[in-house]
């Protein structure tokens, strides 16, 4: 290991300060806000609800629709509103990260709609969005096999680094975001860009899993915060 020091003083395997809150939006059936450092994601869930047009309905299961958007003011340079190729791809991988955790077969013909908005961006927006969406789905009472957690990791100099910031993204040898269902030890999102040997891929994934396990505890606390008082 090299002695790479992070600008914000974190240990290599340390997350940025995490805040998670469930039930932050009034009108949604389920909602959550997740921030990791300066990255802030809000997610709303509606449904299960009727799906129109009818020909999109599936008689055997609910369909899951996800939309990821960056607010125009979320980055230093204004983000042009409307879908971009990036946001379409992230919406797709977000849906595919969440769907394995859901019992969609319980709600034939309906839709479950997930909307993720990034209010402030400093790297790791797709993973913050997935963490928030997973909480919002639980908050909406959607049946789940377990919570979905997500985080990115990378490698700077010779050090594996968890939860990259925007500045760190500039110098990392790779950016590898995962989504992970801790209960099942299953990966539901795996992406990477970079240039590293297979051994590094494995080690970075292992580091990201550790991050996910910590985030899972944060998610549990956030849901307990809203709902456990109902348990008396």
């Amino acid at each position, binding site marked *: 290991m090299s002695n790479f020091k992070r600008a914000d003083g974190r240990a290599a395997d340390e997350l940025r300060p995490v805040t998670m809150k469930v039930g932050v939006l009034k009108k949604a059936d389920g909602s959550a806000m997740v921030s990791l450092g300066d990255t802030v994601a809000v997610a709303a869930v509606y449904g299960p609800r*009727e799906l129109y047009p009818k020909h999109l309905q599936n008689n055997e299961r609910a369909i899951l629709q996800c939309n990821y958007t960056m607010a125009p003011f979320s980055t230093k340079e204004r983000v042009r509103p409307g879908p971009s190729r990036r946001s379409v791809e992230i919406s797709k991988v977000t849906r595919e990260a969440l769907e394995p955790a859901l019992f969609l077969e319980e*709600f034939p013909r309906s839709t479950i709609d997930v909307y993720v908005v990034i209010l402030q961006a400093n790297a790791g927006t797709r993973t913050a969005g997935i963490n928030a969406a997973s909480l919002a789905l*639980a908050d909406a*009472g959607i*049946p789940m096999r377990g919570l979905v957690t997500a985080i990115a990791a990378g490698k700077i100099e010779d050090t594996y680094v968890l939860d990259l910031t925007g500045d760190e993204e500039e110098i990392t040898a790779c950016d590898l975001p995962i989504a992970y*269902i801790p*209960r099942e030890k299953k990966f539901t999102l795996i992406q990477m860009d970079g240039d590293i040997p297979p051994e590094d891929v494995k080690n970075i994934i292992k580091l990201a899993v550790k991050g996910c396990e910590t985030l899972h505890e944060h998610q549990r606390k956030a849901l*307990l915060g809203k709902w456990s008082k109902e348990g008396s």
Partner: protein
Amino acid sequence: MGILKKERDFVLPGDKIVESLDYLPGKNCFRDGNSIYSKRVGLVSFKGRVIEVIPLTGMYIPEPGDMIIGEIKDVQFSGWAVDINSPYQAFLPLSGVREFIDPAKMDLSKVYGIGELIYAKVTSVGPSKGVNLSMRDPSARKFKNGRIIKITPVKVPRVIGKKGSMINLIKERTACRIYVGQNGVIWLQGENEPLAAKAIKMIEEMSHIEGLTNYIENLLKNEGKIKGQVMK
């Protein structure tokens, strides 16, 4: 191995409730390997060998036998389409009404017109959630006036109380007629409607508070005295 949660323990999606093949997963639970897990945010309930989770949040999903309050949305040739505050629209067929109707000779909207409210029984739910209703239950009726309030469907049991204790208390103290639909729609009528509505909303919001019955009893006693001046 063994039983990890006890009656009324708070659980989250993916939480293990028992690790044993002696139990069966009931509502809102699933088996994975030797263990039974919760699908939803809720409270554990043991029913003999069957484990259920009573959800704390979520949509109304119809089940046969439920009494619901619905709104007529469409008059069709062979019956009525009914909104039941659920992802699934219900259907009230001609065979489900008490009167004999010959659709060739009679205007169905004279029986139930669009916008009218009914208290009806769910008779069947098909595999893809086709929902049929009936008005042949003795308690079924059409509402001609009065008002409705909507509450979170999972809170309906709290509003009803043990063996109807809570709702009877409200009926008694406010002299209102009240019908509670399992789908979270509540109809009420009577001089002291605002007070009854306030009590119901309070139960929804404070369902987790200990001694809720006493609290509601006090509310009804104090505010019930100032007839006609009840605050909303």
